[in-house]
């Protein structure tokens, strides 16, 4: 129980928010809008899972938003050329993986700092996309939305897929060698190397995986509506990093888990709709978001200080 203190405290804050909504705005709890909210956040959850892995491995990736846009537009263009979705999906994942591999090669191969490398790729990908596409939207054929299924089925499918991935990854991180490997690289790369694993190769594949997940998320996003806007994905990096950190994944690596990241994402994802339901003016949103992030890290800091003493 003590082990999961941080995750539980985020869950507690989330429960307080949900309870406040239950009392003051019971309208929040309607099945269809909740399902819509969950569907909209499903791709974000996928990216957040990847980000949690990256941060546990003591790296960071701020290019995910731009990767997401590039994957969305490329997948949409392929779909608009009437490629079957069964091919577009792997293509999107593959494009993401290639973009991730570029980051990975620069970071793991050349030993460059991830925050700067991904800052550079973020700008480069975003502006490259702007230059090639001039912000033009892509219109998709009719059968793309919800994979051609009915809306309810499509929505449940996306939410279930995202949750299944979360559970699989969460369990893998705890019980599989690959998962422990990520922790090992993040807590002490040198020790990991001496223990006979190859941290640089591992780091490379973590970024490839991050990119692939982003490609998957982009695909899960474009099938939700009939048009794709190149701007989708702007600001995604900050959202997922905030969610992961609020969820107790330590930026110094090696500590935290996906359940915490999940709780953090739920908390941040609920703020905007909660404000609408509680009839709080929109201009408070960013300040409240910042305050929640600070509160979460301050709580963490206070607790670890107590631990020191």
């Amino acid at each position, binding site marked *: 129980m003590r082990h999961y203190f941080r995750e539980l405290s985020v869950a507690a804050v989330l429960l307080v928010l949900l309870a406040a909504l239950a009392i003051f705005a019971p309208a929040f709890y309607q099945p269809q809008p909740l399902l819509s909210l969950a569907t909209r956040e499903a791709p974000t959850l996928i990216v957040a899972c990847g980000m949690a892995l990256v941060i546990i491995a003591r790296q960071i990736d701020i290019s995910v938003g731009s990767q997401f846009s590039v994957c969305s537009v490329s997948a949409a263009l392929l779909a608009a050329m009437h490629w079957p979705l069964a091919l577009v999906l792997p293509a999107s994942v593959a494009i993401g993986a290639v973009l991730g591999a570029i980051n990975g090669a620069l970071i793991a191969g050349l030993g*460059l*700092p991830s*925050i700067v490398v991904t800052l*550079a790729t973020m*700008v*480069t990908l975003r502006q490259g996309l702007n*230059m090639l596409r001039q912000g033009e939207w892509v219109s998709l054929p009719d059968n793309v939305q919800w994979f051609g299924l009915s809306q309810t089925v499509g929505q449940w499918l996306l939410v279930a897929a995202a949750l299944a991935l979360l559970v699989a990854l969460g369990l893998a991180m705890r019980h599989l060698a690959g998962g422990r490997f990520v922790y090992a690289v993040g807590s002490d790369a040198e020790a990991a190397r001496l223990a006979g694993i190859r941290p640089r190769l591992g780091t490379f594949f973590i970024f490839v995986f991050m990119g692939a997940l982003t490609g998957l998320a982009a695909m899960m996003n474009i099938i939700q509506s009939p048009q794709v806007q190149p701007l989708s994905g702007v600001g995604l990096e900050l959202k997922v990093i905030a969610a992961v950190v609020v969820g107790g994944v*330590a930026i110094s690596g090696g500590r935290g888990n996906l359940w915490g990241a999940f709780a953090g994402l739920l908390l941040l994802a609920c703020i905007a709709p909660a404000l609408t339901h509680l009839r709080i003016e*929109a201009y408070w949103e960013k300040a409240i978001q*910042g305050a929640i992030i600070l509160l979460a890290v301050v709580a963490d800091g206070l607790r670890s200080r107590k631990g020191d003493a």
Partner: protein
Amino acid sequence: MAATEQARRPAWKTLLFSYEALLLLVLVAEWLFFYFAGTTMNRRGVVVGFGTLDRQFDILRHSCEIGLLAVALTPVIITGGIDLSVGSLLGLCAILFGKFWHDGGLTIPTAIALTLVIGAAAGGLNAALITALRLPPLIVTLGTYSLFRGLAEAITHGAITYTNFPSAFLFLGQERWLGLPAQAWVSLPIGVAIWMLVHRMTFGRSFRAIGFSPDGARYAGLPVNRRLALVYVIAGVVSAVAAIIYTARLGQAKADAGTGYELFAITAVVLGGTSIFGGTGTVHGTMIGVAAIAVLKNGLACLPVVMRMNAAEEMSGLLTGALLLVALTAGVLPKIISELRARFHLGAKT
């Protein structure tokens, strides 16, 4: 080994082969290229484009705010920290300055003084969370990044724009004084002061020590917390100065001022050769970095080819990203070559 080798070299040689000198060379080459390729004569027979004096002054004016932020971020990054909140703080300070003057009825100098105090307080908040609670700077300032911008929006409801500042104040952002744009007279001394702090005082040595190993610095008896607090408070105050210059240049203060500036500033610092892990870096490197990006941005907009493509904005972003990657790679290239050579020799022997 590299260190002893460097020590044996004469000083001028070290200077000549330093990263900053290389970057300066790139800057000069870049400038000359644009000077010759981006200067043309228009229909009326007037020389226009990159080569004009007006353009050089514009480059200086446009890079003052980001330059200030970048210079103030340099000591922060040298200590191994980071401050993502400077752009948001610029926005918050800009609207508070407007509010003090417009709604509070204060005189411009009083409003400026109060804004600087706010900047210091905001930097102090970052510092307190980072030092007292030993929280990672990235996370603390990610929180204040949202918080400061959020407060700016909440105070103005996003909508209020403060304008109609007296022309004596606008002079600071728009006119020239003694031959230079007025804001340069404010920014350059601040740059020099921070340079002195980092390179000519014991403070600078302690920043590097902290960045190299915070625990080591602590055991060596350095007041680590006070030194760290200092760099974040400086970043806060300088953001407030940048906010005032920004307001004077545009003649307006609004909650979206300075959005995204933190990324430009960090890019310039890193391009200038400061290691994001802390421990090494120079303020003059940062200044050259700021200049390299500003010249690139401005120069591209003058190239006939780019003008015909209507893609100056996108291309400058693209090339800044590429330049950053090239600079980073160049920085580690010697190490990698020696690594490869070692491996090759080993391979040859066995």
